[in-house]
């Protein structure tokens, strides 16, 4: 019997995937450089000690560095789009639609972050150019003290 799109998606929805990562000063430096941020609080330990943080901290959206799992390239779909949105819908062109990102505390070097990602929803709409599939992924980040660090709910759009 043929499985419908809905039937093949249902088991994937709500299944958490958990990963752990230890943040380094280098990670913070690289993320800051990548976003074009030059604030010395992300680079200079001596300067950072004089700020309210007391140490180097990452930019607010830093946990995006940990959102996509580093699965082997062979496990990714052909376009290389993230495994988190590799869901069985009949559409293969992907763009990022939007995000809602909450920041609870700034990440510091040495933090051991736990990232839990969950496929929250998949829904579809008829767009101007054809059918669109919206894929909603929520990722929660917490640290070694079980304190919430950030939460992102990102929506990706796949089209035929």
């Amino acid at each position, binding site marked *: 019997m043929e499985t419908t799109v809905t039937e093949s998606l249902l088991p994937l929805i709500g299944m958490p995937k958990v990963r752990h990562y230890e943040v380094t000063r280098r990670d913070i430096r*690289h993320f800051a450089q990548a976003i*074009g941020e030059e604030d010395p609080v992300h680079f200079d330990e001596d300067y950072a000690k004089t700020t309210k943080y007391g140490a180097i901290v990452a*930019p*607010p*959206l830093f946990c995006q560095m940990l959102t*996509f799992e580093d699965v082997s390239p062979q496990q990714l779909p052909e376009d290389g789009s993230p495994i988190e949105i590799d869901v069985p819908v009949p559409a293969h062109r992907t*763009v990022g639609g*939007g995000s809602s*990102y*909450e920041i609870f505390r700034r990440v510091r070097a040495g933090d051991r972050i736990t990232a839990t990602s969950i496929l929250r929803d998949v829904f579809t709409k008829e767009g101007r150019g054809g059918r669109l599939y919206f894929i909603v992924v929520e990722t929660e980040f917490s640290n070694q003290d079980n304190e919430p660090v950030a939460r992102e709910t990102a929506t990706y759009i796949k089209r035929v």
Partner: protein
Amino acid sequence: MTTPIPELIVRPDPMQVFMFSAVTWNRHHIHYSKDAALREGLPDVVVQRGLLGNFLSRLITNWVGDGAELRRLAWKVTRSAVPGENIICRGRIMERTEAPDQKYVVCKVTASNTNEELIASGDAFVIFT
């Protein structure tokens, strides 16, 4: 009446788009392969949704400095941005409260290209510490 905050103008180049994909380990080919981007109907490699969010985050942190924290940022991409074009990030204070136990501000934020076409828009919730 709403109050504007200082603008931020950025100009992502191909290296920046590459660095952001690298640092987020995003291997989606529309961000590094112009051929692949064109095959998908895009004009060039495109700036990541995540990187656009960071430009909006910088708009806010440049404005508030050390005195406040960005507590929430929500944004939606309306148009692809490609490397080599200016992105003008703007914000307007829509709501503010000076309650003694919690001072916060809500801003509407936008990112547009030089043709004033909207690339992304959203809102930022900032808590003053």
